[in-house]
């Protein structure tokens, strides 16, 4: 199994595998195996030995950050539900669509019961009796495994009425998306779940926790976030907090892809491991393919500003990555080696965003499509020197001043997402653009994102394997 690997912290100490413990098991997705390996013990503990408030306190104490990309503390999010307003819902965001991200897919395919148990614990904690599992439309195997697991769990009395013989009852509805990236945005997901066009909601209301699905209090949590709950309940929030860095507790899944020898999803201690560790570490991605040089890498999904050689020693921690001018996002690291045509790479990413723009607001709808067309024209051999500034100026009109974190003239951040790859590629690899544009062009459009402006280190620092 190439895309799964046992995890240790550089070999110095054994790390618990919190969410990926059953990935190595061929039948880890079955109810029998799940129970044999400790499954549903946490649920039993929660519903028989703990009050909902105690469960919520454990999660709060664990400082479990949301694993969907924004990194908002899950326990705090739960607390936003206005007291006394029922019904309230748990909605699982399984619409994992960020290019390069495939951790939630594996969690759903290989350990669906862990997710279901997490959902049940969350329902217990916030007092919900109805949950919705929104699974991305393209993930056929995940849907199949989750459906099977849900049926088994219902049959075993783990979901439904009087769970484990208690008064606690929860129904879980499995819903498949129809293939829209934007539905990963939580309010668009709720719209889709309600049967409407998947478009982000206008804010306010700012938080679904107050007014979400059917305008009821709704907690929208990521698959990985909820998959952590059984372990936290069983081992306590404090044990979870012992792992990871000060502001990034526990472990976290990172999906590494691109030009590495061993692409895969790796569970690492959050905030401690560096990019160098995960890209070059033998236990992880094991370095660049064919012994090539690193050209650039995307640290947190296609929307993120690119990182380069000089960023390798940053820890996988939201604050540090943000300070360097990009984001950790959904935990997708895409590595590009020296053979990469960055213009083509930028085009490929922009094409994705142009395709996925929902079309609601003008700058994103027209801007991303225009960017894609300009890049395509360059690749087709019809580039002009003026195109470089034109690209950046279009970017500026979508995301004023091309700053980081991005500003936007759009409603949601999808439009500005297309800006990052262009700004990164142009500013770092101007000569490659010049080659496509029939000559070098002076960049006159001001660019402010820190990562875009980073220059190669003059002295090769540290050891590159």
């Amino acid at each position, binding site marked *: 199994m190439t895309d799964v690997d046992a995890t240790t912290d550089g070999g110095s100490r054994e790390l618990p595998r919190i969410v990926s413990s059953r990935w190595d098991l061929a039948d880890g997705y079955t109810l029998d195996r799940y129970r044999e390996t400790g499954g549903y013990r946490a649920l039993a503990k929660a519903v028989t030995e703990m009050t909902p408030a105690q469960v919520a306190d454990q999660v709060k104490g664990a400082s479990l950050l949301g694993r969907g990309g924004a990194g908002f503390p899950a326990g705090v999010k739960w607390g936003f539900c206005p007291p006394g307003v029922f019904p309230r819902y748990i909605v699982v965001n399984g619409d994992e669509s960020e290019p390069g991200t495939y951790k939630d897919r594996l969690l759903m395919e290989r350990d669906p019961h862990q997710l279901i148990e997490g959902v049940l614990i969350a329902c217990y904690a916030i007092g919900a009796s109805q949950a919705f599992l929104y699974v991305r439309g393209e993930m056929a195997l995940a849907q199949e495994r989750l459906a099977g697991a849900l049926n088994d769990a219902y049959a075993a009395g783990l979901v439904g009425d009087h769970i484990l013989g208690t008064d606690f009852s929860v129904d879980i509805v499995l819903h498949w998306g129809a293939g*829209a990236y934007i539905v990963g945005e939580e309010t668009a997901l709720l719209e889709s779940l309600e049967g409407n066009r998947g478009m982000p909601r206008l804010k306010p209301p700012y938080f679904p926790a107050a007014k979400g699905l059917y305008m009821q209090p709704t907690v929208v949590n990521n698959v990985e976030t909820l998959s952590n709950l059984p372990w936290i309940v069983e081992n306590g929030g404090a044990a979870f907090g012992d792992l990871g860095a000060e502001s990034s507790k526990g472990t976290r899944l990172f999906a590494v892809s691109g030009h590495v020898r061993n692409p895969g999803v790796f569970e690492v201690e959050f905030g401690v491991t560096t990019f160098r560790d995960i890209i070059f570490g033998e236990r992880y991605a094991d370095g660049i393919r064919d012994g090539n040089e690193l050209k650039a890498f995307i640290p947190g999904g296609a929307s993120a500003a690119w990182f380069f050689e000089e960023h390798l020693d940053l820890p996988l921690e939201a604050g540090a990555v943000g300070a360097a001018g990009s984001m950790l996002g959904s935990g997708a690291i895409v590595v590009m080696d020296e053979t990469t045509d960055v213009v083509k790479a930028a085009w490929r990413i922009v094409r994705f965003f142009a395709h996925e723009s929902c079309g609601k*607001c003008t700058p994103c709808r027209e801007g991303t499509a225009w960017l894609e067309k300009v890049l395509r024209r360059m690749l087709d051999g019809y580039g002009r020197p003026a195109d470089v500034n034109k690209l950046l100026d279009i970017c500026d*009109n979508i995301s004023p001043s091309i700053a980081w974190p991005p500003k936007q003239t759009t409603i949601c951040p999808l439009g500005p997402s297309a800006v990052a790859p262009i700004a990164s590629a142009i500013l770092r690899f101007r000569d490659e653009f010049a080659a496509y544009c029939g000559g070098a062009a002076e960049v006159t459009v001001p660019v402010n994102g820190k990562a875009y402006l980073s220059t190669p280190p003059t002295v090769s620092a540290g050891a590159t394997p």
Partner: protein
Amino acid sequence: MTATAADTVGITVDGQPIEAMKGELVIAAAERNGIYIPRFCYHSRMKPVGMCRMCIVEIDTGRGPALQPSCMIECTDGMTVSTGSPVTRKAQEGVLEFLLVNHPLDCPVCDKGGECPLQDQTMAYGPGESRFVEEKRHFEKPIPVSDLVLLDRERCILCDRCTRFAKDVAGDPLIHFMDRGSQTEVNTFPEHPFASYFSGNTVQICPVGALTSTPYRFKARPWDLEQVESTCTSCSVGCRVVVQSSRNRLVRYQGVDNDAVNWGWLCDKGRFDFEAVNSEDRLGEPLVRDAALSLKPATWSEALSRTAEAVKEGLDRSGPEGFAVIGGARLTNEECYAWVKLAKGVIGSDHVDAQLGDGLPAEVVLGLPRATIDDACRPGGTVVVMGPDLKEELPVLYLRLRHAVRESGVKVVELASVATSLTDQLAAVSLRYRPGCALPVVRALVGRHDVDDEVGGVAPEALRAAQQVLGDGPVTVVLGRGNLAESARSIGAAAAAIHHSLADVRFLSGLRRANVHGALELGMAPGLLPGRVTLDGGREWFADRWPTLPKARGLDAAGILRAAADGKIDTLVLLGSDPLADFLDRDLARRGLAGARTVVALDQFLTESVKQADVVLPVAGYGEVEGTTTNLEGRVSTLARTVTAPGTAQADWIVAAELADRLGGDLGVGSVADLAAEIEAVAPVFSGLTAEALRSPVGREGVVVGMPSRRSGNGAEESEVAKAAPDEPTVDEAATRGQTAPAVADEAVVAAESNQGTTPELEPTGVLPPTSGVPLPVWTVIDPPSVDAYSLRLVVTRKLYDRGTLVRSSPSLADLAEPAILHLHPQDFDRLGVAAGADVRITSTKGNVTVPTVPDPGVPRSVAHLHANRAGGRANVLIDGNSPVTDVRVERP
């Protein structure tokens, strides 16, 4: 509106301090203060969506300036807005460039060119030239989204205005966004065209040329248009419009945003029936029946002489009572006055009725305390709809009420015998009463006792629910004829019962004909004189002003036709009316037209009834005469003249003046202005309503006559007329006196003995002018017979598109009128032994028609629902005007 400090916040826009209303959007506050922020998706009458991003400006709420859509941000105290900063300009320029990226820029061949917000704002805020060299997206050139609206998707900038209008304002969610990203398009679902009565509004609010209407497409360029502001007279709502013409032909109406009435919206019938004015079928020369009994063209002189001779002969034969006028609701106020003066004041006959038996007695319309549309839609109130299906007959009132229900918490109690457009989504309670039982149902509703039993087919639970709603807030009753086969008397009595039982209840008339309210205010009904006074109450006042007066109360339309059928009418004038089509008893209409010695028709078209006339006088139509019209609130607003009438067609008032002259009398007026001045001088409720008042800033939106208006700041009642004429305090007194609350008979208005039409005498005031006020009549209401097991009770309602003259003469609308079809409850088919879709014969005591059937769960069992005036089966063949209800048999033919 005087704002207090608590309602306002102070913001700064471009350095200018602005007092904004709390909750007001930045874009609106800026515009109110003369700073225009460009926009495409924002529309002041719809909820903002912040989609086009054109109105993006730098807003600083204390955390530094940030680009924000000004259509989404509410003003907060201390906010600083910069609409012209370099960052704002750059962002707006960028948005415009994006909008133009896929826009075809086919302005030279686009109907919108010259009046296009995209064009205008590109000039003002856009980049000088395009940097877009790639291929634009392409769509099939215009596709029809409905019979009236074409969509050119290439031009569309996806602002969501049309789709939002369809969904939120009209409630017809038939156009949607489809696909996504830059391939997003607006379209309809297959087999579901945008068949909305309001589709034309989407064309008007489209900020580009993506939506065009078939009647206007490629007809004119904006810079070739002449335009005047006027009032729509397709129904009685009185929407303000801009009438646009080119080369002496009407080419387009656009709604004007009038706070009091239509908010800029129009219905498609009102918007597109200008085609009827342009129709080739318009009458352009007088016709006179010759010796061979066929209608032959004649000169005006011949036609008028013939008419005058007939009238004189009649006067010699039977005195003034031999002269009768039916119709007048099409006329302007001034023309109504001219004809009332001719008939009542020169000839001396009171046989004048602007209605055709399908309305309500004038005393009911004028005698009940009236409400404005705003009164009805005021937040927190309750509206009882006991009248027509508003969407079908008064479409823009439906829009206003829909908005009030959805946005202002207004609750609707509907009394109707079949489901209407209010039933499904707007009515809090629908009381589906058995036809003929309006009175007992209303009594149970407004009675202060518990209801335990079914009343008139309405379950006690529904009545109790309605009672509850009625207790929630001020009540306005929309009153009209929901079922033409149920007698007006029954509705009038029910209205009187509500008036008697509910304190402070107000009534909004639901009569639909254009200026029927103006006609009634000006005395076009038996027993009335101009200015909402009774014949007897105003006798003293008018005796000094008019040559003569009728001796006694005359006949209404039914009475006139009956008298004519009996040979008692010498001259019957059809004032733009078509009794054969519109009078509820077609057989009586036929006999009446045949029995009158001479029938004189003033009309624009050779209708079925006009063909029966002996003299046909072609008259001017919409846009061809100036004057004023009165809407269902009593709101008087101006009508503009912008094109000339075809041939030698004359205004109706000129015909009246000419006739008076030939009869040896004198109408004493030489112009519309003379008429208006005389109305102001003699008709009490019009006192103070001068031409200047109607031109004042307040009066431009129309002035409601004869009703105390909203309370002004000091708590005193201030009349709308007085507000519109602030410089003439002397008229105030007269005006206020003119609006004294109607003297309504306080006692039970339903008494067993009295007959319709006996009006208690109103004490003459002794001082001139007379107090306006029309007492409610006292009726005998006969309980409807029970339906026998073999019969169905008939319900006749109107549809917006029928075989009426306007629709039939407007090519774009004519095809939208569907043929007659009988609606039956699905479970009645088996009982009757008929199949859905099959033809059935409907038989009443009056006649029979054969039409197809359709199952309709909105129709209660044992009810037969037919629409009036449709091709293939006329409902007025069946209606028995003498009975409170009409029962029919439905059989296989």
